């Protein structure tokens, strides 16, 4: 089975364990993820804040490249990239003139009919039906499933299951053996792109998220976005200074939890790459 793969820039650097774990579980499940040839940055927050055209043309180049690679289904694990790619696809389909202008500029044909999957949709489609066969050791922890903004909003375009209180990640984690907690900050913003330019705001917004997860009994926060991860994990000192206490709850990618449940080692799952130590022993 061959599916297209757009890693995005974060997954090659600060969130490499996300890429490593998604590739590891896919390989073990016999699914080949094929990277789009010569993919470029989606432009993220910077492009749509400063330059409308780039916010469309940068993602559009990737959509066109995927098409020319013969890809029909594309997995985009980074929630920010996923959002930009889906929003661009939507915008170009709403505006034929813009679509032809962008295609002309790219000097590439653009049918714009790609099926774009975020990590939760990918897992639902290709892993959930086979979990009995894939899981060696259930991941029996109390977890807070944190979706953040970009997997669920804007609900006018991004079709999540329930955008104010999504359940898709909770359902997957439950099937892994985990106990997803009921909590209030599932879809609150972590501070996103302010990690460097306004770290104190990230400390506050992420601090409220982490505090609520811990108060509700979470032993780990499970995420599906590199920005959420780095703000909740790498920015823990800013969080702790906002909360005036030391919070030790680890933050992990959903693909890492699956890797552990599939019998991989902590190292294979990339747990050693986190700032807040995380250790869930898997004895099979």
């Amino acid at each position: 089975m061959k599916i297209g793969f757009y890693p995005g820039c974060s997954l090659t650097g600060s969130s490499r364990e996300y890429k490593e774990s998604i590739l590891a579980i896919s390989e073990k499940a016999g699914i080949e993820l094929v990277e789009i040839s010569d993919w470029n940055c989606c432009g993220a927050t910077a492009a749509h804040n400063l330059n409308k055209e780039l916010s469309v043309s940068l993602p559009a180049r990737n959509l066109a490249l995927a098409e020319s690679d013969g890809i029909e289904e594309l997995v985009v694990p980074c929630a920010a990239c996923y959002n930009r790619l889906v929003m661009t696809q939507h915008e170009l389909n709403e505006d034929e003139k813009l679509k032809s202008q962008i295609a002309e500029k790219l000097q590439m044909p653009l049918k714009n009919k790609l099926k774009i999957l975020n990590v939760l949709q990918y897992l639902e489609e290709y892993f959930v039906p086979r979990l009995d066969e894939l899981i060696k050791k259930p991941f029996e922890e109390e977890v807070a499933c944190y979706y953040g903004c970009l997997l669920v909003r804007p609900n006018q375009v991004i079709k999540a299951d329930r955008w104010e209180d999504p359940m898709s990640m909770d359902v997957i984690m439950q099937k892994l053996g985990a106990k997803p907690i009921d909590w209030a900050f599932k879809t609150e913003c972590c501070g996103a792109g302010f990690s460097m330019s306004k770290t104190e705001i990230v400390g506050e917004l992420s601090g409220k998220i982490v505090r609520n997860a811990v108060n509700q009994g979470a032993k780990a926060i499970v995420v599906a976005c590199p920005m959420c991860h780095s703000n909740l994990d790498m920015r823990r000192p800013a969080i702790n200074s906002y909360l005036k206490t030391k919070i030790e709850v680890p933050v992990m990618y959903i693909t890492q939890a699956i890797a552990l449940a599939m019998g991989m080692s902590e190292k294979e799952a990339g747990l050693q790459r986190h700032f807040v130590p995380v250790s869930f022993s898997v004895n099979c």
Partner: protein
Amino acid sequence: METKNILIEVKRQTGVNIRECYQCGKCTAGCPVAEEMDLRPSVIMRMIQSGTNEEMDQILRSYTIWLCLTCETCYSRCPMDIDIPKVMDYLRQRSLVEGKVHPEARKIVAFHKSFLNTVKRNGRLSELFLTIDYKMRSLRSGTLFQDMTVAPGMISRGKLHLIPEQIKDKKGFSRLFKNQLKKRKP
């Protein structure tokens, strides 16, 4: 007459009809950064509805437009489906072009510029080069030593690459940054 012009201009540039806002205030209530803002999102909507050119000027000089995180909560909850984040994008770009960026927002703008500059050079983002570019741009804001403690941790975890990843088709890619499309009529 002036009021109408501002509303029409925003509609023309973004496709968003702010006339439909009836000031329920849900956008402000759910905004994660509303407390820090000088003008709340619902106030900006009202100012565009009833505003003069002076009020538009005040919006373009506000801290709010740069504080907006594009978390999309306001848009998702708006009973009239008004795409406020899209309007914020337009206001930011206009504020930048007209040289009206709020002094408190300079670090945010510097970060975005560094981001795009790094992408323009290599086609992909190098977090190391982004950091260097950003530090150079924001020297006067005293950011030089900030994050110095994070860098070694990133290196020891294999997360900071010294050599940036580059795309192959740099020539084709650079076309995207040149000759921007003209503003279109609706």
